[in-house]
Each structure stands twice: as structure tokens, then as C-alpha cells.
């Protein structure tokens, strides 16, 4: 591990000030000389592996604003402070009652120990686990732009089939983000440019020709909160995660589903897919296919086909298309059958 400076700014404006002083505005947050840590469960890992090389770490855990650590519920909005730990949010009874999807997506992620360390903002910004990205001796366009992509023709079992490009097929592995994008969440940001709000759906960027640019954040942008709208329908929501083992594994395929039902008829479905796409993935085509329909296995299958119509398989990950479809079908039926 390389030497670095470690600082604990006292409040958000101090964090922004230090970050904007030491970071080149042109840099990506993941490439900047100064970077934030919260739980450090992702960044410290990548520093040890030589993938991330910040010269200065700003530890956000000393920020004094109490709202950063609070979950507030009211007016149809759940507001999660950025530093709330995954475990705490997962265990919040009100959140579980109002919107099980949020709790389940957190509870099924990582391990108890990691959930106790990891923050919600850090969680949504976690970087891919692509094996070739994590080992610096391989060519990787995300790590070293222009060097190529070792995964494309390599061992790509865990890689994405949706949202891929010729430059990168790395999966976005987070679970919570699937709930957030399905529920039309918003992030609150403070940065040099002042405070602003961003649709969660705009936070992450498709790899395209620039897989190294992962988000629309500037290096001095601090996420301070995540807001999630809720209503009566959000009680009928569910996260289904399919993986190689029962716990402590990333999704091979997952589905975040919220159903607004009128009897058995779907007024509105909200769907996101995890483990199969390069970014948090809203499955709008599947939602449309369900609109106004009575939900049964066949209708669910049509929606699943729509969700994966554009999927691009590679050598080892082709199974993610049938698996992703089956996951969505099962999630839809399980959500339909929820007793709320």
C-alpha cells in the first residue's frame, strides 16, 4: 500500500473545501488525488490492491451534521443520511414496513460485519468486482483507459449482459441501488458548485467509450442524503437475489420489484435488475409490458422477455439471460402473493 495523508474534516463544508483544494476538477472522483471514505470497505480494499491510488483520504465519519446519520420518515419520503450504516437501515422497522424492498436489498448484501461498517452512500458508489479490474496486471479500460478489456474474451461469468459496451462489460454489483432506482430515489449532494439534487437514475453512467467515468459526480461532491418516495403501494415490494451460495455473495441475478395492484390488475410496476447490468438497471420495457395486465406466470414471462430483449451475452455469462428472466418472473409472482 502506498503512503497517503489521512484527514477527518469536521463538517461537510470543510470536506468540500479540502476536496476542491486538492482535487483537479477534471478528474473523476475515482482517479482524484483526494477521495472520501466512509466505511472504507470498498476503497481501502482497492487501495491495497493498487487499483485506487489517492494521495489524500478524507474520512467522513467525523462530520458533525447529525442528519448525516439519521433516517427520517415523513411526507411520503424516507430520507437516509449518507453515513447511515447498511445494517442500521436494514434493521429499521419502519422502513421494513413501509417498503420491504429497501430492507431486503440491504439485508441480503455482503455480511453482517460489512453492513455494520459500510455507509449507504459508499454502498451506492461501490465499484465493480470485475476480477480483471481488481488485478492491476491485466488490461482494463476502466482502470487504465485505452488499455483494453481482459474480461471481454476472458473468464466473464460474473459480467453484465445489459448496458455493456465494446469497452467494458463490468457488472454493477450493488443491491441497494436496484431498490433506489426502482423507487425513483433522489440523491442530495453538496459540492463546490453548491447544494444540488440528482435523480438517482442519473448518478451512474453507462460505460460506453469511457468506462473509467462511472458517475456524474465531481471529485469534491459529497453525497449527504438519499431520498426515497413511498406510498401505500410500496408495501408490496420485494427484492429477490439469486446467488451461488445462501449468503455473503454478490447477485448472479436479482430483481427489485414494487407493484401497485388493483385486485390482480397491475396499475404500475416498478422493476430494477441487479447482477446483470453495468449500472443500476431500471427495466422500463418490462414495466410497460405489465401495465394494465393481470399478473400471472405467462404475463410475467412476457415482461421478463422484454427486460432482456437487448441483452448481449459473452462466453461464460450467457446463462444470466435465462436466469435473469426466471428471477424476474419469480420476483413478480412472489410480490403479487405478498400479504400486505
Amino acid at each position, binding site marked *: 500500500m502506498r503512503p497517503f495523508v489521512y484527514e477527518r474534516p469536521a463538517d461537510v463544508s470543510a470536506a468540500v473545501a479540502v476536496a476542491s483544494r486538492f482535487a483537479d476538477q477534471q478528474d473523476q472522483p475515482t482517479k482524484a488525488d483526494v477521495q472520501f471514505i466512509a466505511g472504507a470497505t470498498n476503497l481501502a480494499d482497492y487501495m491495497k490492491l493498487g487499483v485506487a491510488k489517492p494521495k489524500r483520504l478524507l474520512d467522513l465519519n467525523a462530520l458533525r451534521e447529525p442528519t448525516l446519520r439519521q433516517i427520517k420518515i415523513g411526507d411520503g419520503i424516507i430520507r437516509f443520511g449518507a453515513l447511515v450504516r447498511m445494517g442500521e437501515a436494514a434493521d429499521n422497522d419502519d422502513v421494513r414496513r413501509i417498503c420491504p424492498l429497501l430492507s431486503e436489498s440491504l439485508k441480503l448484501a455482503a455480511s453482517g460485519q460489512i453492513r455494520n461498517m459500510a455507509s449507504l452512500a459508499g454502498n451506492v458508489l461501490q465499484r465493480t468486482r470485475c*476480477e480483471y479490474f481488481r488485478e492491476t*496486471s491485466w488490461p482494463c479500460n476502466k482502470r487504465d483507459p485505452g488499455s483494453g478489456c*481482459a474480461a471481454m474474451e*476472458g473468464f466473464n461469468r460474473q459480467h453484465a449482459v445489459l448496458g455493456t459496451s465494446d469497452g467494458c462489460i463490468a457488472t454493477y454489483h450493488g443491491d441497494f441501488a436496484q431498490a433506489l432506482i426502482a423507487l425513483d430515489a433522489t440523491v442530495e449532494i453538496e459540492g463546490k458548485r453548491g447544494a444540488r439534487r440528482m435523480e438517482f437514475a442519473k448518478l451512474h453512467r453507462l460505460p460506453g467509450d469511457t468506462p473509467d467515468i462511472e458517475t456524474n459526480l465531481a471529485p469534491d461532491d459529497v453525497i449527504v442524503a438519499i431520498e426515497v418516495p413511498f406510498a401505500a403501494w410500496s408495501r408490496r415490494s420485494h427484492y429477490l437475489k439469486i446467488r*451461488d451460495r445462501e449468503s455473503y*455473495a454478490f447477485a*448472479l441475478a436479482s430483481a427489485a420489484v414494487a407493484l401497485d395492484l388493483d385486485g390482480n390488475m397491475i396499475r404500475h410496476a416498478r422493476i430494477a435488475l441487479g447482477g446483470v447490468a453495468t449500472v443500476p438497471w431500471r427495466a422500463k420495457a418490462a414495466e410497460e409490458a405489465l401495465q394494465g395486465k393481470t399478473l400471472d406466470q405467462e404475463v410475467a414471462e412476457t415482461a421478463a422477455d422484454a427486460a432482456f430483449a437487448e441483452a448481449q451475452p459473452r462466453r461464460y455469462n450467457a446463462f444470466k439471460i435465462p*436466469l435473469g428472466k*426466471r428471477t424476474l418472473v419469480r420476483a413478480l409472482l412472489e410480490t403479487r402473493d405478498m400479504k400486505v
Partner: protein
Amino acid sequence: MNQAAPAPKENMGQPVPRIDARLKVTGQAGYSADLAAGNVAYAALATSTIAKGAIQALHLDRARAVPGVLDIVSIGDMDQIEKPKFGNTGASSIGPLHDKTVFHDGQIIALTIAESFEAAEEAAMLIEADYAQENPSASFDSQGTKIEPAAGKSPMYKEDAKVGDFDSAYASAEVKIDQKYSTPTQHHNPIELFSTTAWWQGDQLTVHEPSQNVTGWKIELARQLKIDPANVRIISPYVGGAFGSKGPMTARTAIVAVAARRVGRPVRCVVSRMQAFGTQTYRAETRHRIRIGAGKDGHITAFAHEGWEVTSRPDPYVVGGASATARMYNYGSVLTHVSLVRADRNTPGYMRSPPETPYVYALENAMDEMAVALGMDPIEFRRINEPQKEPIGGKPFSSRSLLKCYEQAARAFGWSRREARVGSMRDGDWLVGMGCATAIYPTAVAPCAARIRLTADGQVRVQCGSHEIGTGVRTVAGQMAAERLGVDLDKVSVEMGDSALPPAPVSGGSISTASVCSAVLKACDAVRQKLFAAAVGEGGPLAGSGNAKLDMAGEKIVADDGKSAALSDLFKTMQIGAIEEYAEFAPRGSSPEALKKLYAGESEFHGGDQDQDSVKYAFGAEFVEVRVNSHTREVRVPRLVGAFAAGRIMNTRTARSQLMGGMIWGIGQALHEATEIDQRHARYVNRDLQDYLVPVNADIKEVEVILVPEIDHEVNPAGVKGLGELGNVGTAAAVASAVYHATGKRIRDLPIRIEDLVT
């Protein structure tokens, strides 16, 4: 008594807790890299990023410039010492810093030494190499591999087992199968990382390293360093998981010793988990073709098992499990053939039940297929083919309780509730499947020495250079001494894991309990003889009881005529404070050089299929229930039942624990574990516990272990059959059969993953 401490049945010892249990769970057990070593400097490895070629230049300047770096050992710096040797004590003949050839991915190219771990690591990451790269062969399907017969390439695999005329028997069989199976690359991934700490005091070298073979390593390290073995001491008090990975010494040990000499202070190198994949041994991938022919009545008439195994270019590591599968059932005719496939890979090595895990997996999966082809219950099919004699040499089994194991496991499992038709059992959205398979492991034993010291106050010290690799051998050795010398176990201390102790064989092949207990027994008996003689001798406290049968119990010598003498009194009359005996145990049939070899760090194994009088194996039967989701097809295992018979069970608690751990590992082998190789570059891709999957707690629900009583006086004086490696032998095949039963899909290539079932 509870589930973890089963009540002993006939020929079983007490379930006493491990004598080091508290130390381990409270973190007080000192593992090699925890041990204080004075003013220690830290070392880190730099490893190759290609699998085949030559190093043209190494750029060390940036690494040297890292503050705190003391020295770098790299290519050319080992010229004064001998290259490693491949064999039982040496992992590979590759001397990574001896020449510039790169034989495999992750080969050591340099060792950085610094004041701190961080500086050493940073420096290692800054080392760059210019390579003349060649196209590597990754595995079976790669261009450029070399295939050759395995027979004769290893002293452990002299010939392919054969009997009768397979071809004509198979041709005329009424029912037959011909199928291919495979097992993946696997790495042991013990939780305790690999490490070496070395330091010199004058010309005395001390090494702390987790080891399954301290005596062997002492001799081999001295050979490489060209020094007197008397000047080398290997210390390995606790080992946090080994499974074979800490059996053979790797090239790193000598490199760290050289580094310590250069910087003139202790040097410690803890290998990262990622680097362990290329610098340690592993289980290489295997392929199998099995043909079985039988009559409609289910009697097998023809069996052929062909195996292919990957090894490195320079070293012929042979798995050779066909010798076990060839002796499993009453086949009539048998044909086996094992081939080595040389690729550009690091040299594989032993991994828990090395030959049996892959080969018996293939056989037992095939047996289930054959039972299906015959329309016969799989247990009945095995019962019909139960041999009276071992099919190859016609020798008797010293004991064989396989059918008893099947009966007891089937009953506990509820096999009778199984509906034979594929896909017929369901629980809501989950397809239910049930499968079973045989476990087998050769029973071997090797020469071993031990020293016993008994003091007047009833304290016993056992010394034996064996290794506590987590099996509980320290505890059972202590139990043996306590029982023979008639003291409580808490009065016994057991010293192991040090090459300065009386030598013991490698802790591999499940020989430790048998070998160590036989040596401890012999030393204890020598102590007893001396005490008995003094007790009944002139002026002794039991003078006059000369014809009585004597024993030791409750810190007394007790005679069957009712008299007894306290140890303390006896010691007084003998005018001594302690009695010490050193015993060398050599199994029946040992060669004249067997003991000499023990001191030279070579273990002469006896038993298995090698003895003249009989073949010696332990057996078990494993039953598995799986659930497969009808939508998403993930496989889960709610229930495992295994029944095992292994001669005398020294301690039902540690025995159960070993078998249960094996079965759980078997689940991993069936469903999770595989090292992935980038086929273009012959490089390992998933080198950490995030991507190298093993079962977690949530994957393991009910596991029941049944210990089936068995008495076998032939195997060794202690009557013990090793069982450390038995538990994981049958599991994967039982899972594969259960998955077939649930889904109708026969998965022949391990691990069974969701992609095999979803499409």
C-alpha cells in the same frame, strides 16, 4: 453428551474436548506468524504476471527507493544454494530465483525486505519485469500440452490396476454406461495464511512456518542451504488449516532464510491470499471416463476408469485415484489407466483425500447412473456388488463395514421415504432430491517416535514431532497416554510441531492418529514395564504380586489380586523423580531402513493396498437431500447424513468434527469451489475468498454424523483407521445424484452451478 460430543459406542474413546480448544477460541494459540521473533523485518513477494517465458530484465530501482526498504532478493541471489526438489517434502523442483525461466503464473520473481510490512508490499508492487513471453498451455484443451502415462512417474502410483478381460466382458454386458466426468482446479485456502519467519543465531537457523512435516522440512531446508540439519529447527506449534497445502515445503522457505542471513535479522514473510494461488500447491483439474457393464440382475461384470490429471511441466505430480476405485466393488473385470497432462502451471499437490476426492466422485456418480440404467435402488445396487475380497489382488479386507454404514445412514436419513421417480418429490416451489454415495479412504500408518515422561506427582509429558493441523491429534495423543498411564487428561501436556522433538511422519494421508498413538502407546508401555518391574520387585510396594496382572489407573499401579500402589510411593522406593522413555514405532512389514528414513524426514507408508496380507480401508456412506428452486434453479442442501466406520475411534468429539468438516467441504466441492483459469494466459482469475466460493454457515443446515462401531486389530497396534480425509470423499457424488433425482439432469462436471440447471 450432546450432538457435538456423541456418546461412545463399542471401541470408542471419550468425547473429551480438545486440550487446546480454549486457547484457540480465545485467540491465545500462537500461530507461526504471531510468534515473537525479536527485531523482525518484513518481506513481501513479487510474482510473475505471465505463465510461460523468460525474464529479460528486472527493474528494482523504484522498489529500492521506497523508504524503509532494506534489501531485495531476486534472480541470481540464490546461486549459492541448491534448487528445491520435487517429492514428498518438496512442493516443486522449480527454483524460482535460480534461473530466469517462468514456468507458471504467479511464480516468485523477487522478495523485498523492509522495516515495515507496508513498505515491503509497496516495494514489491513497484517491481517490474521485462518478459520474453511465450504462448502458455493452460489446461486440458490447450494447444501444446504433453500427455503421458502416469504409471511409474510417482512412487505412490506404480502401475494401473487391471484384472480379467474388460473388453469382452464389457462388450457382452446387458446393461452399460460410458460417461465422462470432471473435477475443477481447487485451492486449499486455509484461513491461516502461508508465512515464513526465519532467523539466524550464528550458524543456527530457526524457522517458524505452518507445516505438516517439520522433520522433512528440516532435512530439505538444510540440503538447499548446504548446512548441517542439526543446525536447522522448524517450529510450527499450531496450524490454522492445512488440508495438504502445508505438507510440502515451497521455494519461499529457503528464500526467506537467505534474506534473513543477508539483512542479519529475523525476516517474516506473510504471503497474501492472492499470491498463495501461484506459490503454493493446489488440486489440479481432473477428467474421467468410466465404463461399467452389468447383467440385468445388477452384478457388475466390467469396470473401466480412465483418468487425466494436469500437472506442471517439470514435476510429475500424480493423483492416481484409480487404485482406490478399482478396489471398491466386486467388478469381475477391471481396466484402469491414468494419464498426466503437462501444462504451464504451478505444480499441484496434496489436497484432502487427494486421489479419492476426484476419482471416487466420478465412480460414485457413475454408480448412480448405472443404478438408474438398471432401474435399481442405488443402495441395493451397491449391496449386490459388495466384494468378499479386493478385486485386483484377491486379498481380504482387514475389515469392511460399508453395508452397515449404508444401513445406519439410510435409516437415519429416511431413505425409505424417497420416491424413486425423477422429479417426483416437491415442497412448494422447491424440487426435492435425494442421493447417496460411498466414501472410502486407505488406512495407512508410518514409523513414528515419541518420548514420554512421567513424574512422581502423576504429571505426563508427551513429546512427538507431529503436527496439530486442527484434527485434534494433540488431544488424542494425550488421551492415549492418560489411558495407558492411568492419569487424568488434565495432567498430560503434549508438545508437537517442532523438529527438535522426536520425529513423526508427515501429517498427511490420515496417518497421524494411528502412527502417533502407536508410538505413544509403545513409549507408555515401556514406562509401564519399568514401573511394574519395580513394583513387584524386591522391596517394591507390590512385592509378592508377581503373578498378578498389572495395570495403571487413578495414579496407581493396580494388580488384579486387589492390591495397589500409589505412583508417588513407587517413585520413592525407586528413588527417582521422573521416568522417561523414548520409543520408535515401525509398523509391521516396515523395511529395514524405515526408522532411518523417519529421521531423514521420509515417511514410509504402510497399509492401503500395499500390504501383503490384506487391504486396509475405512468406509462410509453419505446421504444428501437437495432442494432446487423450480424457477431459478439454485441448489441448496438442507440435510446431510453420513455413517462411517474407522476402527477404534479415539475421541468421538474430534472424530465427528473431522467427518462433519469433511462433509461440509464436500458440499463446497459439489456446489461452490473452483479456481478459474484464464485459458488464453494460463493465469488464475478468482484469487480471493470473494470469488473463490466455499460454503458459508447459511449453506449448511442439518449435518448428522453416525460413528459405526468397528474393531480391526490388523491395521496397527492402536487399532485406529484414519478418518481425517474420509468425510469429503462421497459427498459430491451424493449431491450430483440428488440433483439428478430432483431435476432429471445429470451433471457430470463439478461444481454443479446454476448455469448447468437454468438452461
